[in-house]
């Protein structure tokens, strides 16, 4: 990629500044209505604009509010999902009595990896997801998994294949 010229960069800055000025408080108000928490709303609004700033050509955005609410909604769902997963994870390690708590950095890395795998496995049924995780993370045999989930060994094999295919998919 060639670096943008000065006038291009100035124009881009101008477009983004206008977008920010015209729509930031609108988006924030909408998010606040849904979230009833100012700080969450402000964070999601900020993240939404961070994604817009990262877009290659903001000047081409025709319906800024539609785009912003689409990104905002996606971030909202992602945040809820992350909170669900984090809660389940912390509960699991608390129950299993880990000798030492992970450091914040370690915790963050695990959460990132969990979110990545969660995204990859998004299209799988809950049984397929469970079979894949029992097999690939916990190392259980298909016979054990089949008994646990109440399905046939062949079905477990198919589930694991589905999970492996999902993990192989190239990022969209």
């Amino acid at each position, binding site marked *: 990629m060639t670096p943008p010229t000065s006038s291009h960069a100035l124009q881009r800055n101008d477009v983004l500044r206008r977008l920010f000025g015209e729509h930031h408080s609108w988006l924030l108000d909408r998010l606040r209505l849904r979230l009833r928490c100012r700080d969450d709303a402000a*964070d999601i609004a900020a993240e939404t604009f*961070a994604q817009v700033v990262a877009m290659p050509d903001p000047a081409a955005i025709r319906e800024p509010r539609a785009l912003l609410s689409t990104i905002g909604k996606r971030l909202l769902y992602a*945040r809820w999902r992350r909170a669900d997963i984090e809660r*389940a994870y912390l509960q699991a390690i608390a129950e299993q009595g880990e000798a030492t708590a992970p450091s*914040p950095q370690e915790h963050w890395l695990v959460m990132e990896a969990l979110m990545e795998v969660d995204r990859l496995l998004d299209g799988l049924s809950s049984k397929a997801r469970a079979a894949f995780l029992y097999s690939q*993370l916990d190392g259980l045999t298909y016979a054990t998994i089949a008994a646990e989930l109440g399905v046939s060994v062949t079905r477990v094999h198919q589930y694991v*294949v589905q999970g492996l295919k999902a993990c192989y998919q190239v990022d969209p």
Partner: protein
Amino acid sequence: MSDLPPAVTEAIEWYAQRTSGHFDESAQRALEAWLAADVSHRQAWVALQQRLARTLGPLAERQGTTQALRASHGRRHLLRGALGLGALAVGTQLLTVPGAPLHARWGADLRTASAQRKTFRLEDGSSLLLNAESSADIDVHATARRVSLLRGALMATVQQDLARPFVLACPWGESRLYGGACVLSMQARQPQLWALDGPLELQAPLQRTTLQAGQGVAFDGQLWQPIAPRHIDQRSWVRGLLEVHDQSLASVIEHLRPYHRGILQVAPEVAELRISGVFSLDDSRAALHALRDMLPLRITHYLGYWTRIEHA
């Protein structure tokens, strides 16, 4: 899901068989024969293992990950009230409880290094999140709770205790609260105070005022004034972001500095360029590149630790 190349589909089939728990020597020989039959087979096999190592590797041999990923998708509505600061507090609580309690460190300095945010849990149940390159003194005892910010910024999530006000102090004034959360920042030589959750009382040599949740004030050298729409939002660092409303480049760089390893130098001819946007603090290089995309800048790195920002 798009169609995978045949060699990849076969590799996945082999992989699934190998992890089934029943993979004997004859199966192993058959796999080796398949691998030897075509170069595309071996490539697909290696590619599959690499991808799995990248995605599942960080989670392997770690407890709790399967349970985490089996978390139901159907509980979203329950989370509405538990997001944000609440969720953050729960997370840090569980993380720090098994470690050494902080009451052993009363009066000690809390410090964070460059590019590091860190949560400290206090004996009274309150927690402090320190921004990068920040430090504070704490003094919690039976009748008072006091935290003095010495450098940088912090967010205090205060455990409600009507008998012991929680005082968060900086050289230009102190805020007093009995519960809730607030942010105090002394970055870029402009002190700011925000009430995040619940009201707080601000006491300064020349004034005394109450802030409601969501209100912020900045110190102008003499008085704490309500924060104007044009500002750098001192709360966004809590989430690793820098949110800027029509500010000078110099001031934006001032806020990136604690997250940048090495020296950041801004040439005078670009220091006053105005900018609005949201930048990631945890990746200061990406933030600099975003700035370069928005303004006519040339960014040069010398010797790996010296960065100069000039007019393009």
